[in-house]
């Protein structure tokens, strides 16, 4: 039973990370119909930048802020320079461009920082908490992961629900032409959407790096797990992305905990196949916005 709870707690922390990457994927997909396969690699880059900044001895939190700021900048830049030119082309072109960016960034990071595994600092202690007399597999840092992603989710929800910026972003995503006729500057908002998504990714990078090996490819698996989560959530529903992230995190934790960690990626693949077979539109898709 203890094993079960420990695995569950680990799954929740993992799931929150998947949720934040999946949220970025969904924000972008909803607005521009593009899956950003470079979402993980962009997060990798901002995390490496934070690593270098941290190495200068400025402390953890300034490096943290630098990473998020770099995400904001990088997301917008990528949309402006690489995505806009292929926006009105067949969707495959955008897939190839984001995938090309994925490996371009990994190659560049390898050239600058090397391909070997490194350690990345954590904001809080990573040793398990002790409740009563039993140690559990949940650390202060895991609490930080959960809180940080929850804050992100609340901010995104508030943005969309309570601000006119969110209103305009939704309009730009759902009905770009109608939005333009109402004076919404759609192309600028799409750029901003990429920026926000990249910030979510940058946060995920900072949260993953201390808990795994830290090398230019460290976000690869996270990206495909987040893709799984986003598909489970319906690919265009932010709420679905968060729930999908938790479901994926828990499911993979059980697979890893009981069957062995090497089976996690296969487990994700099986989940993806099963979900697409039984509920292809995802578990939480908005019924009105079905893509046939």
């Amino acid at each position, binding site marked *: 039973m203890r094993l079960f709870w420990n695995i569950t707690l680990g799954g929740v922390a993992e799931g929150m990370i998947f949720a934040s990457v999946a949220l970025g994927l969904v924000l972008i997909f909803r607005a521009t119909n593009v899956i950003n396969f470079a979402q993980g690699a962009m997060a990798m880059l901002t995390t490496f930048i934070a690593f270098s900044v941290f190495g200068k001895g400025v402390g953890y939190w300034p490096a943290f802020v630098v990473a998020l700021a770099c995400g904001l900048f990088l997301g917008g830049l990528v949309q402006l320079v690489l995505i806009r030119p292929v926006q009105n082309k067949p969707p495959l072109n955008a897939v190839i461009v984001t995938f090309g960016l994925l490996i371009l960034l990994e190659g560049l990071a390898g050239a600058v920082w090397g391909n070997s595994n490194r350690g990345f600092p954590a904001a809080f202690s990573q040793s398990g908490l002790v409740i009563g007399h039993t140690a559990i597999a949940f650390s202060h840092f895991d609490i930080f992961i959960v809180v940080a992603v929850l804050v992100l989710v609340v901010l995104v929800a508030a943005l969309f629900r309570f601000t006119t910026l969110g209103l305009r972003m939704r*309009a730009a995503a759902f009905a770009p032409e109608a939005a333009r006729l*109402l004076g919404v500057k759609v192309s600028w908002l799409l750029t901003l959407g990429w920026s926000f998504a990249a910030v979510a990714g940058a946060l995920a990078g900072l949260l993953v790096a201390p808990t795994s090996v830290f090398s230019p490819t460290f976000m690869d698996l996270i990206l495909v797990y987040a893709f799984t989560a986003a598909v489970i959530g319906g690919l265009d529903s932010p709420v679905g992305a968060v729930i999908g992230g938790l479901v994926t995190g828990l499911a993979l934790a059980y697979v890893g905990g009981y069957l062995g960690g090497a089976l996690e990626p296969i487990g994700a693949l099986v989940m993806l196949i099963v979900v697409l077979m039984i509920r292809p539109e995802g578990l939480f898709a908005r019924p009105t916005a079905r893509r046939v």
Partner: protein
Amino acid sequence: MLEVSELSVSFGAVSALKGVSLQARTGSITAVLGANGAGKTTLLRAISGLVKAHAGSVRYDKHELVGMSVERIVRAGVSHVPEGGSVIAEMTVAENLQLGAVWRYGRRERQRRIGEIYEIFPALATRAKQHASTLSGGERQMLAIGRALVSRPSLLLLDEPSLGLAPLVTAGLMAVLADLSKGGEITTVLVEQNARSALSIASWAVVLNLGTVVVSDSADAVAGDADLRHHFLGF
């Protein structure tokens, strides 16, 4: 005053507008009529900047609209209700209305303007929190027009607002449009298949055929010309 001159638009080999010229007097309703594929929608889309004109000009209120971006044309006071209304189904009625005014008004003024729209279209007020996807065809059309009006445009472009509406609802809608233009502050260009009801409220009428203006005359004259009606308008 809206002044379209020698406006030409083509899509690849198809030329949809071939040197169209027309004028819409300030504060009046101008009906644009014509068969399917005549170029009516294209005309409105060229005025509001959604399609690029390759020749000609559109002057409105000291602005040359050809070459301006859609967003800037909107800020010049032009509101375009596209064919089918294009309300955003994923949003509520209130959110759709908000969206119409965000570029122009702050929160307080926006609420006041939306209140005025609810007075014009009471049916919308009771459905404020409902998703637009749940509205009937007529309610959608009202929402689309209301959404275009919240920003107090000076030029209103309406593309077939009566599309799919019952005759009684159409008559009500036309009455509202006639009322709106009574104040003399809003210039309306009304594209319609339903020529009879459009002519009943318009003061001027333009008939398009295959991308060219074939008739441009007072609405009464057009309505009174049996030959013309028979030939181009089918009633």
